């Protein structure tokens, strides 16, 4: 089966802070990484390939430097990598991104399953996965935490809900978005890294993927960012002193005063 994995390069925002003097974001030595949820998607595609055979193509939309995350995916064992890159794609919101990726996937050809990570940690919208499915006209199942069964025509999964999970079955081709619970991503192998370094990454621009200009980039983005501001930081309150018993007593007093207990 042909598997397609959609991945994104995101800033590794583990150390983002706010500068109290200027009240703006400080990005201290942040490198770009594969969106963490996407590594689970890549791992799942490799496991499926090991399970039922096939080929894994990984695709991403981004600036030229995004090729590093595609190489990482290749070093984990993916077979082919495609980067959709074009100035015309800049400024895409989730709708335009879904559309662009869908056009790219159509160009790849026949596929059985598209796998995406639940959401990207910079945008946090979780919208692109279902958006791609809609544009491709295929069913989508989000928050997949386990693939119970898969064959040439159907897939059965466990979908994580707030209070448990659902078991859903659908026909292929389909799209799923996966959560962390689904697997433990593998480390790249040395042979994989060497192969990935030499591999050719296909770079496709807007004219390569037969897309309509009005549906990509800024033009294809119905949402626009009106304003960006840093929220007022929440201030700390009071410190309760004393030995543990005293502290407990004082706290309970305060909670009672606040009528929450």
């Amino acid at each position, binding site marked *: 089966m042909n598997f397609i994995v959609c991945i994104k390069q995101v800033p590794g925002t583990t150390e983002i802070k706010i500068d109290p003097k200027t009240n703006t974001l400080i990005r201290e030595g942040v490198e770009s990484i594969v969106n963490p949820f996407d590594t689970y998607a890549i791992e799942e595609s490799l496991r499926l390939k090991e399970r039922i055979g096939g080929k894994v193509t990984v695709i991403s939309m981004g600036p030229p430097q995004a090729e590093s995350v595609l190489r990482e995916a290749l070093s984990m064992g993916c077979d082919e990598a495609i980067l959709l890159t074009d100035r015309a794609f800049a400024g895409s919101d989730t709708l335009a991104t879904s559309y662009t990726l869908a056009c790219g996937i159509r160009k790849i050809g026949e596929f059985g399953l598209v796998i995406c990570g639940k959401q990207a940690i910079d945008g946090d919208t979780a919208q692109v996965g279902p958006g791609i499915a809609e544009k491709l006209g295929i069913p989508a199942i989000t928050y997949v935490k386990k693939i119970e069964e898969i064959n040439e025509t159907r897939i059965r999964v466990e979908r994580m809900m707030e209070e448990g999970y659902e078991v859903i079955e659908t026909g292929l081709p389909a799209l799923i978005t996966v959560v962390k619970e689904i697997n433990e991503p593998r480390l*790249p*192998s040395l*042979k994989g890294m060497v192969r990935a370094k030499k591999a050719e990454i296909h770079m496709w621009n807007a004219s390569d993927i037969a897309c309509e200009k009005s549906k990509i980039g800024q033009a294809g983005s119905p949402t626009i960012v009106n304003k960006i501001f840093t929220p007022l930081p929440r201030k700390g309150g009071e410190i309760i002193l004393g030995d543990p018993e005293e502290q407990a007593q004082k706290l309970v007093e305060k909670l009672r005063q606040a009528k929450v207990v």
Partner: protein
Amino acid sequence: MEYFLSEEQKMICELARRIAEEKIKPVREHYDETEEFPWPIVEELAKVDLCGVYIPEEYGGTGGGVFELCLAVEELCKIDGGIALVLAATALSAFPIMLFGNDEQKKKYLPDIAAGKKLAAFALTEPSAGSDASAIQTTAKKEGDSYILNGTKCFITNGGEAQIYIVITMTDKAKGSRGASAFIVEKDTRGFSFGKKEKKMGIRGSATRELIFNECKVPKENLLGREGQGFIIALRTFDVSRPGVAAQALGIASGALDDAINYSRERVQFGQSISSFQAIQHLLADMATEVEAARALIYATARMIDKDPKVRVTKEAAMCKLLASDVAMKVTTDAVQIYGGYGYMREYPVEKRMRDAKITQIYEGTNQIMRNEIALALIKEAARKKK
């Protein structure tokens, strides 16, 4: 410091570092306490192709040499000096097969080692034959199409866990040092059993056992090289494997140094971090300089070996093993000192490094023997020049 590593060498370091940080670090205390054998780590190393990092591509390895092995061992030992022996001690046993094995033997044993499916061990030492290797008493007597082995080996790393053993035996006592032969013996061969597992001071994440041969029948195809080559095989093996031991010591020292630097910055006494005291600074400076010197010597030796496998590197190999192990012992002791009282506590990672470092001064040739070898090599060289 720029080490001028190639892209692939950098990848090896990065992979080994990730395995060390992500897979070994969370469990190193566990293996130190329980002395269980770290099979899960063997699997992880196999998955990323590190088990074959020094084995030629035609046998399933990634085609690197001694240098690549040293890089991997060093990174792994920065986190734990014992668990990495699954790789280093196996290499010690794989080298003789690569150097002296015939095609069938290479094809039979190397691929499984490269894939991490089987581990290997090198068996020379006996209760009465440590530094005096020529005093070994294990015999191998030819009988028809096989050899019958009798005797005991002790202190064998990976003993009991490995599938493949290179055993040095006496095939002809009369010939003295020309009377030894090397055999490849597989686990589960009839007559081959294991003694107790040793309880060690350090490197407790590795297994050390006695090997017992009692009328153990080994097919003649398993003779490595020719009869009588036993000690030559051993010595040539040590020449290429000693940089690996040195890399182990280097990793242990390097990890201890990093921990000590970080700790000294965090620990506050007399209102300042102890890293601002000259006493600590001088310690750290000496430690760092010695570690870099050891690294330079190991890298240079490893590069020499890989460039020309025919060149004799006995002196250089002995030098880097000698230096790195002495440095490791000193650096880890100083690291414990810098940690003060906390350094003595098992909760903190430094005392383990000190316990792990000691063995590097002893095995694969004690440092006293190393000095002998170096001196002999120097004198020989001088004598040759005189002519």
